[in-house]
């Protein structure tokens, strides 16, 4: 007999419906899966067989053919185990086929018949909802991420037997309760705080500007000065994610399988710090399955590159395009997938290979030659540096400052200012498709970054003095806009512009000369 079950598969971040047809005929016992299954899908046959037997159903010897339609898309993952098992049971008339068409089913089966958590449930549910599917059966472990989506009815049984009893009307399962995002968003989950960072006033200011406008930041300083600590504080001063942002990020994390099963939602901005041995593929995304990379995992959050010159140069250069566009298109022979990658780049580096150049400490003198320093700074290419809006030198702190200085501003205080600056930007860009100053295009810069006569003159001087590129100028204007926003000023003043120019032009290469 033939049974047909609705399921869903993912192509990048978008789902598409898969019809699972299970045909059980008399004849030599066999179990074939067709419709371009990957190895994990083919292995379903073994899991399905064991799970059915261990759920006290009969895995009667039948000539079974499972077709996954559309047959021309490569099917990945283990989410079809459960619908295949249900299809088999319906085909062999062990459960009633009446209600099967109502549901979209997803789930991996464990050998004992229990349903295991799968990755990518959130994006699947969202795209299925857009196509008009409303009722789902998913594993219990995925219930949390499904609970945030409004307008769907999700059932999350523990195992195959429960699911079948539910489908047969023998047992009631309560649908997953809807959860409000606001109930989980506002909780502070960080164990660092800006108030524990002593001194570093300038760096903290740069951090605040960068976060307020979503600008990219490079911190340069001697070893142990506190660059990494400062970077770790960035998420604590970033504004809370809106529901839409949280959904965007959760979709990516769900596909990557790194979502917290309890929480079910990414509620804090991601802070990704890939080690400097990271490969090109792991950073950008790729591989035969076109998986997403660190830039996408950092979407709506921070991508922190510690010790930037230590990264493979080629790897760094690939960041240029996502920094500009906010999306990465991973293209392979089999498929081409677009992942969002709107992140704030924060990088840190030492001023020279020995790490002491420019140190205020008399006993820590730099031992590097001029050529060595030049080469070290040269590892980061001009075009990449050009895309960084703020450069800040992080000096080591003095003992007095370290031990006695009163605790600085707490992250909460800074965050309040950042939220205010962001609110101004949100209002300004309410008609546009962007959120922050850093995303402004030339038309918007023209419109919102008007300069007075004095500022215009200052910019011209800076342009000639530092041989700025056209892009550098636009970036300076954007930062100046953010500085004005932090103070709630309508127009950019000379001081705002001067601060922006100052942060833009003290790049590591310049200092060394």
């Amino acid at each position: 007999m033939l049974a047909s079950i609705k399921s869903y598969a993912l192509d990048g971040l978008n789902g598409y419906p898969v019809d699972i047809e299970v045909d059980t005929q008399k004849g030599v016992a066999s179990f074939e899966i067709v419709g371009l299954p990957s190895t994990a899908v083919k292995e379903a046959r073994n899991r399905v067989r064991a799970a059915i037997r261990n759920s006290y159903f009969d895995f009667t010897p039948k000539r079974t053919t499972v077709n996954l339609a559309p047959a021309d898309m490569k099917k990945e993952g283990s989410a079809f185990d459960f619908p295949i098992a249900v299809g088999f049971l319906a085909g062999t008339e062990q459960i009633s086929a009446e209600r099967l068409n109502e549901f979209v089913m997803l789930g991996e089966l464990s050998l004992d018949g229990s349903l295991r958590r799968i990755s990518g449930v959130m994006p699947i549910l969202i795209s299925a909802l857009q196509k008009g599917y409303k009722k789902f059966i998913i594993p219990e472990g995925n219930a949390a991420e499904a609970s945030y989506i409004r307008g769907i009815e999700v059932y999350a049984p523990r195992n195959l037997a429960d699911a079948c009893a539910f489908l047969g009307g023998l047992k009631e399962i309560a649908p997953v309760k809807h959860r409000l995002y606001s109930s989980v968003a506002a909780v502070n989950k960080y164990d660092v705080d800006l108030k524990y960072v002593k001194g570093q006033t300038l760096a903290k200011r740069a951090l605040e500007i960068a976060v307020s406008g979503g600008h990219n930041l490079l911190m340069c300083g001697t070893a142990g000065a506190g660059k990494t600590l400062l970077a770790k504080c960035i998420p604590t001063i970033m504004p809370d994610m809106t529901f839409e942002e949280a959904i965007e990020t959760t979709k990516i994390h769900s596909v990557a399988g790194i979502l917290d099963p309890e929480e079910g939602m990414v509620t804090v901005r991601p802070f990704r710090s890939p080690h400097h041995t990271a490969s090109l593929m792991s950073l950008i995304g790729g591989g035969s399955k076109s998986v997403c990379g660190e830039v996408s995992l950092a979407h709506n959050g921070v991508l922190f590159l510690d010790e930037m010159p230590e990264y493979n140069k080629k790897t760094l250069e690939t960041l240029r395009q996502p920094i500009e566009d906010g999306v990465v298109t991973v293209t392979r022979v089999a498929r081409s997938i677009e992942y969002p990658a709107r992140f704030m780049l924060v990088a840190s580096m030492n001023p020279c290979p020995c790490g002491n150049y420019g140190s205020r400490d008399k006993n820590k003198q730099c031992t590097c030659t001029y050529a060595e320093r030049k080469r070290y700074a040269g590892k980061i290419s001009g075009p990449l540096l050009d895309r960084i809006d703020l450069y800040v030198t992080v000096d080591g702190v003095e003992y007095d400052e370290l031990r006695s200085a009163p605790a600085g501003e707490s992250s909460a205080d800074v965050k309040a200012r950042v939220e205010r600056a962001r609110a101004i930007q949100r209002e300004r860009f309410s008609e546009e498709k962007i959120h922050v100053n850093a995303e402004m295009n030339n038309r918007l810069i023209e419109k919102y970054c008007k300069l007075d006569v004095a500022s215009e003159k200052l910019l011209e001087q800076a342009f000639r003095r530092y041989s700025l590129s056209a892009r550098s100028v636009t970036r300076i204007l954007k930062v100046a806009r953010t500085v004005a926003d932090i103070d709630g000023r309508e127009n950019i003043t000379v001081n705002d512009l001067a601060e922006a120019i100052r942060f833009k032009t003290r790049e590591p290469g310049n200092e060394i000369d």
Partner: protein
Amino acid sequence: MGGGYPYSAAEGILAEYQAGEMMREKGYTVIARNVNYPKIGELDLVCLKDGLLVIVEVKYRSGDMAGDPIEAVTPSKIKKLCRAAEKFIEENSFYDYDVRFDVVSFRDGVPEHIEDAFYGVWGV
């Protein structure tokens, strides 16, 4: 024969006979023995019970050295059995039956009946 284990034709014939007896005791009807299709494959025992056609593969081993007899049913052997079973169904019009593969394995002369021992493989 599998790797030169102590084995004799007489023992093999005895094992197949014993397996048949065992199936009969369990309520199966033995309808064919040693069905041989040259170049296709061979079926040791074919039994019937409740609308189910059961193809039995008899495996004989002495001593532990050879491992579990069931391990001797390799994928290529399974493919041969499938083809032979198809041929048998065709010749004898058993189209309306579910077909199951069983193994009766002898270890030191003690028979063990494994129902639904493996599934058929197509293509490959």
